[in-house]
């Protein structure tokens, strides 16, 4: 049974992505008691699935290494993974949260030796790679996962695989009797950092994500380019494994669109510029990149990066929202549309099309456990009515990593202000 000590001076952080981790650590390193609740079996959220960050083209795992070290060493921080906040009542300074913990079937005795994975047979689509690869029924979610503990897929519980895994473990780390638990804890303030999810590309019908294998999303492309990803960093297309040297990036795929998301997701322009560099790095002179955009939003100092990428002869920018994609008999996606700068029609064949999908709040408008101010797009607005609940990162708006971390640091202070008020009242 999981036991967590928490008081009205505890800060509850919901979501262990880059925003949640940042908020939790800043508060804990200021001496506050923090409980961090993450739905996935590991911390880091979506940034763990990114290959590089714009505009530095550095690696998310670098910062993650530091953040994980910080969490491992900090005595003020309690981490609950596979956990969800299913209830929240009370008011600033006195909340009660109900937390539901899904069974991991692996306890803290796990040494991440990997024997269980070797023992089991069943394979499943690997969610970490957006289904681009398979993983075993006993698995480490990804190489740097923290906690560095294996997970049993609930689907193998009750099957021979589960017993094999248990038998293979020398450390009594596998507990097939684990059941879902619910626990209640008190807290004075809540930082809501539930983040975002990629917009469902299949809904963007004219682009045929559901019909053409060589139309993929930007998040999938990120896995494709990762040297430690499912293709070992080879940029190949799903239909036939052919190298994808000519690639179209379609901006606002689901964003700024009344049929999908009304808001601008802010990151997609920079993300596509970044991903264009993957293609240019991989194929040099043979690379051909077309970016179809409405407005290129490389805001503030990011303009430097836009200029750097634009300087390359092999990348073109077309001011156009493509009207549709059709596939020719070889499976090449042909992008149709009109270049609006002077009305030029095009029907451009590519090896691969990458849809720069928009950011959607991970929590649906009607799914919040407690009433908070939510705008039309489902993001949380800062408001006094929210009491001791503070959004951090992409729960508040479509933000890039830097702005999320910045925003989360501020959120930590807002939570501390509440906690300190409580403390002053209590002494």
């Amino acid at each position, binding site marked *: 049974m999981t036991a967590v000590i928490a008081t009205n001076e505890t800060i509850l952080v919901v979501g262990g992505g880059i925003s949640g981790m940042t908020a939790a650590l800043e508060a804990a390193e200021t001496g506050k008691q923090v409980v961090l609740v993450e739905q996935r079996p590991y911390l880091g959220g979506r940034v763990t699935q990114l290959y590089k960050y714009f505009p530095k083209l550095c690696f998310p795992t670098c910062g993650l290494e530091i953040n994980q070290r910080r969490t491992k060493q900090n005595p003020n921080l309690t981490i609950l993974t596979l956990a969800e906040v299913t209830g929240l009542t009370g008011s600033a300074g006195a909340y009660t949260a109900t937390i539901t913990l899904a069974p991991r079937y692996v306890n803290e005795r796990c040494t991440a030796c990997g024997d269980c994975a070797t023992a089991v047979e069943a394979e499943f689509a690997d969610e970490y790679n957006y289904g681009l690869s398979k993983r075993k029924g006993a698995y480490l979610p990804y190489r740097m996962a923290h906690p560095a503990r294996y997970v049993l897929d609930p689907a193998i519980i009750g099957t021979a695989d589960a017993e094999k895994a248990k038998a293979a473990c020398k450390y009594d780390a596998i507990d097939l009797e684990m059941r879902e638990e619910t626990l209640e804890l008190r807290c004075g303030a809540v930082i809501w950092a539930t983040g975002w999810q990629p917009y469902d590309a299949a809904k963007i*019908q004219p682009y045929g994500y559901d019909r053409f294998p060589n139309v993929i999303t930007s998040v999938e492309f990120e896995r494709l380019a990762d040297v430690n990803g499912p293709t070992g960093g080879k940029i190949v297309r799903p239909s036939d494994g052919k190298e994808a040297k000519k690639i179209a990036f379609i901006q606002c795929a689901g964003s700024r669109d009344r049929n999908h998301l009304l808001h601008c997701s802010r990151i997609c322009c920079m993300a596509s510029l970044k991903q264009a560099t993957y293609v240019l790095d991989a194929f040099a002179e043979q690379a051909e990149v077309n970016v179809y955009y409405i407005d290129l939003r490389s805001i503030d100092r990011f303009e430097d990066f836009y200029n750097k990428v634009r300087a390359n002869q092999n990348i073109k920018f077309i001011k156009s929202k493509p009207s*549709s994609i059709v596939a020719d008999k070889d499976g090449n996606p042909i992008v149709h549309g009109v270049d609006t700068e002077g009305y030029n029609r095009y029907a451009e064949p590519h090896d691969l099309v990458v849809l720069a999908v928009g950011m959607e709040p991970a929590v649906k408008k009607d799914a919040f456990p407690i009433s908070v101010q939510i705008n039309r797009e489902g993001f949380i607005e800062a408001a006094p009515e929210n009491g001791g609940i503070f959004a951090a990162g992409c729960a508040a708006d479509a933000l890039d990593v830097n702005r999320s971390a910045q925003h989360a640091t501020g959120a930590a202070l807002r939570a501390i202000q509440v906690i300190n008020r409580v403390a002053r009242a209590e002494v």
Partner: protein
Amino acid sequence: MAKRQYSFYPGCSSQKGASSSNYLISAQTMCEELDIQLNEIPDWNCCGASIGYAGGGELPRLTLSARNIALSEQHNPGQSIVATCAACWLSTREAAERLQHNPALAKDANTALAEAGLTLKNQTPIKHMVEVLIQDIGYDTIKTKVKRPLAGLKIAGYVGCQTNRPFGIAGESFENPQYLDRLIETLGADSIPQFEKKVQCCGGALAFSEPAKSQEMIKGILESAHDNGADLIVTPCPVCQMNAEVYQEQINATYGTNFKMPVVYYSTLMAIAFGRSAQDAALTGQVIPAEKLAAIAGK
């Protein structure tokens, strides 16, 4: 069992001796088999179609449909209006919605209707016959009625524009609707789900005013159907049917092609599959004979 009652809006082209009179015949046969009773809206008028815009301003065009809805509400109260023609369905439904959202226009329309002692309540659902088949009857029931499966036939389901956009059939996508394919399979024939021109425009009314431009598009549709090995094309829209069928000779002349692709209505297919005669299915109405279908009808 009691027949389903609908207030029926056949439209100009379905009239006796008009371009899609064969549609009407086959549709009626189909409805008999499905226990559907169509009660024609008395003295209905033309919907104005999409092409009516040059002469007709907003209100006059909306009033055309308003009159039909008013007549239906008066004579076939409580019955949904059903149209077989895509344009009729679209104009009527569009008018109904525009008038619902714009009280001022609705008031004007009623003032106009008053001239003939009519009033528009505008509370009547407006359906395309395909909606009746899919939503009210259902594929399963249709399957039970099949006496002569259309085995061995490969059929391209050509949806076209106006039965698909902007309203379309609930649950279907604008870019790749699949209800015709599903219907084809239900009737025992083979569908061509990858038929990439299934929602390509045929030129609509511009087939008359801009024949060259339209026929270029029609050629594309025929080509794709042919390349996908279709024996025939099926469509829910009279304009699509006519455009795709009757210009083939001219297209062959212009492009040196050799199309002889039958284009039929879903209702024709169903009438045959339900075991009715070529006559009842209006196969006689094919400018390009659908021999393979006729053969099945002959069995």
